[in-house]
């Protein structure tokens, strides 16, 4: 086992190991049941630290066991329509020859799947272009920023070239960027008022767009995120915010200090869920975006 650089992180790894299930995979919360999203995040964290290869293999196997015929990975077998963990599974399987076929089927599913779209009505109160295809959280709903960004990150990490589908999703993200900078869940303006940006979505979108659009195209969003992260310590926002800035070579010098402060918030809010623990760990180890730690054994 490699030596991790920070005692607090070692402690978080122990917490993470405590969430492992005997049948493989991880629960979202202590003493909970298997969840695909939690398992995928834990697998990414384990792979990045180069530790616990047994647990890592079992986690990847469990996701593959639960994968459906068409390649999707859903949040539970009773809810196949909630397929948003699929790009997470693609990332969790990255770098594992034993799971190449499962990853390939998940990629195929993503390539064939879009959110719900319709021709833009120029008189509609929503301003964004509703016809541009991305990905949705669940079947039968509109494409949103986060699942689209995550799918783009997953496809890139899995080595998929930039095709028409990818280029359209990039265009969708650019269309959903707020003119003042940043992204939210997926609406830009409603009834003539621009909506507020959100830290987590901005981090994700920036990570997905790094290397795919010019810095000038996202300059305001980078500025928004840099300002936000000086005071946001909530783990999901901070974790993705740092990855988003890191993807553009703008990771703040205080990143690790801020991540420790985020861990400390558990004194107030109780133990973080498996996703948050894993995201913070990955963000701690990252030098750039999520791609700088996923699929690279022992990135720390």
């Amino acid at each position, binding site marked *: 086992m490699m030596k991790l650089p920070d005692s607090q992180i070692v402690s978080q790894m122990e917490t993470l190991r405590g969430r492992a299930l005997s049948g493989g995979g991880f629960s979202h919360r202590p003493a909970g049941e298997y969840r695909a999203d939690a398992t995928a995040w834990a697998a990414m964290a384990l792979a990045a630290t180069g530790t616990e290869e047994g647990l890592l293999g079992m986690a990847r196997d469990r996701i593959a066991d639960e994968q459906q015929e068409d390649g999707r990975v859903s949040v539970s077998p009773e809810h196949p329509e909630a397929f948003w963990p699929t790009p997470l599974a693609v990332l969790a399987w990255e770098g594992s020859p034993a799971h190449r076929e499962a990853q390939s089927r998940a990629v195929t599913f993503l390539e064939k799947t879009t959110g719900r779209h319709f021709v833009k009505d120029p008189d509609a109160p929503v301003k964004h272009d509703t016809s541009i295809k991305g990905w949705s959280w669940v079947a039968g709903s509109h494409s949103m920023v986060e699942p689209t960004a995550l799918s783009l990150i997953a496809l890139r990490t899995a080595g998929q070239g930039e095709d028409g589908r990818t280029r359209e999703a990039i265009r969708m993200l650019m269309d959903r960027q707020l003119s003042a900078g940043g992204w939210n869940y*997926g609406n830009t303006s409603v009834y003539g008022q621009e909506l507020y940006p959100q830290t987590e979505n901005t981090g994700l979108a920036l990570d997905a767009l790094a290397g795919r659009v010019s810095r000038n195209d996202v300059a305001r969003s980078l500025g928004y995120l840099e300002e936000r992260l000086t005071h946001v*310590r909530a783990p999901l926002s901070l974790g993705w915010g740092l990855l988003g800035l890191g993807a553009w070579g703008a990771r703040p010098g205080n990143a690790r200090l801020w991540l420790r402060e985020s861990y400390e918030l558990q004194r107030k809010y109780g133990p973080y869920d498996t996703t948050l623990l894993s995201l913070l760990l990955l963000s701690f180890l990252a030098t750039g975006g999520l791609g700088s730690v996923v699929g690279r054994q022992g990135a720390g």
Partner: protein
Amino acid sequence: MTLRGNTRKKVDWGRREFLLGSLGWGFAASGGLSVLGGCTKRDWRADTFIAKVQNYEADIVSAFGKGFRELAVGAEEIKGKRILLKPNLIEPHAGAGHINTHPGVVRAAAEAFLRLGASEVLVGEGPGHSRDSVLVLEESGLGDVLAGEHIPFVDLNYEPGYKARNLGRQSRLATLTLPATLARADWVVSVAKMKTHHWAGVTLSMKNLFGLMPGIYYGWPKNVFHWEGIDRCIFDINATVKPHFAIVDGIVGMEGDGPIMGNPHHAGVIVMGRNLPALDATCARIMGIDPYKVVHLAASSGRLGPIRESDIRQRGERIASVRTDFALLDRIHAQRGIRLGSR
């Protein structure tokens, strides 16, 4: 279908859904209003309590105590019960406290129920626009309050769900997936904010229940409900969940382009009751809005509760003494022509 005792307007999902559908944000799922699913019309009477509370530094707990007495909510009913408070925390922004239920109202509600002998009070919310519940708690100020009072918070967005038959049956959804915490609560209390809304006209105690529905099954925002018809889904969720009590924070509400971008409006009231359509109808009248012109309230009339003024016994303050018209915007379809007294 004509509403009981009101011939001014028909329950008309279609008009709004046509408008929303044309925007891609709603979908006309089926024909007219169904009376299946245990939601047949019947006579309803309900009590609603209005308290004047000028600001968040006031003694809100006492206002709750008085309201509970007026509404016959006593220790014999609450003792030993597990109470789930569901505030509106849709999206937090520092300095925009009029978006969310104020932390002081949540704290006062918790204290009031504990004083009646509740075994536990917990706060649960599945924010509709934000996946980061720690950020929601930090920026709304509720996190400090809950930590200080040792009140647990449950992020309903990530709760494992259980399927319940859709008892409202106004959308095409055969079942609704509800969070596990709901099954463990003896009382479900909607603790909403008094706001106008650009898709639903108003967001009060009934619309607030969208936040019960886990994002892991419905997404962020819960766009599945937009496609199924927002008004229909408000009806379905309320018919299925059957909340026990509701509170609306109208000390400072939101007018205009709610639920996020509107302006603060000081109404100086807290309103509460056991029946949510009755409570929301009272709130609408306080806001200067005709509840019969709010689609989900009109649809609920006689099926989930009363909204006719004469069927609602007002306790505490009279509506006329606290009415303060919230700004409505003509450019917003759902707010057009809903002013009380307008044709």
